[in-house]
């Protein structure tokens, strides 16, 4: 059974195997297909049109399925690997071991934002940014630029306290747990973390930075924590909602999985601590 661990608790061996599996998916071309898929949805999902991956109730089950698929690809390379999660309420500075040279490498240099250390630095030769929106083919970051702050645990708890999963109009203007977790409204959790990292993580091709998976693994864990806090609440809407994925409707691009299928993460993995 796959156990997703806090990245801060990984052993040196676990870090190395995770990084090696990422590099292999990059080398064999599978990694970039995930970047392409994500960007296609982020550019196609609109507040007043069809929306599946973002700014909609299916933001959470869509990313859960997307991460499971990615994790399965990693495990095809190395069956011991699981996606770690990054609790950015705890590891909230650029000095975190997450950003050390033996793991993801650090922030970008000031001149052009280029990451210059770690296994994903352009100079290491194994991480060309191929799926991109501008001419730059090197991984970039600008951790905490302009004094930006990552969300605090108190801010997370304020969102986890929201008992309603989602609400009309089921988009970036919605009240409820999903949109506050996604960050279009309120204290802003998920979106803010993308902006805090900067570089490709702030763009539509954000999975170019491997921290994307660890950020979304934590967002996914927060969904599980919310379920534990609100056992009488569930995914909404239930049925008949135009342009929106209802509980038992299938999600693109898989077309064989529904939000209902994704509600119980323990069918696929567990966490190292109670979710």
């Amino acid at each position: 059974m796959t156990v997703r661990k806090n990245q801060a608790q990984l052993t040196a061996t676990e870090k190395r195997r995770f990084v090696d599996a990422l590099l292999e998916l990059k080398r064999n071309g599978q990694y970039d297909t995930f970047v392409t898929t994500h960007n296609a949805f982020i550019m196609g999902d609109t507040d007043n049109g069809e929306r599946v991956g973002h700014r909609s109730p299916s933001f959470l089950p869509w990313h859960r399925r997307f991460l499971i698929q990615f994790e399965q690809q990693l495990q095809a390379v190395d069956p011991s690997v699981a996606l770690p999660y990054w609790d950015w309420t705890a590891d909230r500075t650029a000095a975190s071991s997450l950003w050390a040279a033996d793991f993801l490498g650090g922030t970008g240099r000031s001149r052009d934002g280029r990451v210059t250390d770690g296994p994903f630095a352009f100079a290491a030769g194994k991480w060309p940014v191929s799926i991109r929106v501008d001419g730059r083919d090197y991984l970039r970051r600008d951790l905490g630029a302009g004094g930006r702050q990552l969300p605090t645990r108190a801010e997370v708890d304020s969102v986890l306290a929201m008992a309603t999963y989602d609400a009309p109009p089921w988009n970036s203007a919605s009240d409820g747990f999903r949109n506050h977790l996604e960050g279009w409204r309120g204290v802003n959790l998920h979106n803010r973390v993308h902006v805090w990292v900067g570089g490709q993580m702030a763009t539509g091709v954000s999975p170019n930075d491997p921290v994307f998976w660890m950020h979304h693994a934590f967002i996914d864990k927060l969904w599980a924590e919310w379920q534990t806090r609100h056992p009488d609440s569930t995914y909404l809407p239930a049925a008949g909602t135009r342009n929106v994925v209802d509980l038992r409707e299938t999600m693109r691009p898989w077309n064989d999985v529904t939000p209902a299928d994704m509600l119980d993460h323990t069918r696929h993995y567990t966490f190292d601590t109670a979710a």
Partner: protein
Amino acid sequence: MPELTRRRALGAVAGAAAAVAVAGTTAAAARTGRTVSAPSAEPASFDEVFQGRRIQGAPSEASGHHGGGHHGGGHGGGHGGGFAVHIDGKELHVMRNADGTWISVVNHYETFATPRAVARAAVAELQGAALVPLVTT
């Protein structure tokens, strides 16, 4: 989507937009001093040189203005709100949110009050790099 329908939809969330603006929810908002404009207002066209680069914004055809289908999941148009932004002649993919704010493909998780603000933010983000159609190989 018919313009009247969209305007009505936008008007319905004006209250939410105002609440967000008052709350001043992000550091970015304070940093850029953005304010949320009246959601029903059509954005103004612009054409200027910002940090050495030409940025232009103007209403566009309601559909198909992206051409090429380079973003796959493609709904052709609509999510640009019928407004196109260019940097040095290359199209910057932009999207309008329900509350009237804007994002672009290079600042996709941070909202801006106007297409001009989103274009200026993209110039800063690009640090001189040219926009390219999405490279998929």
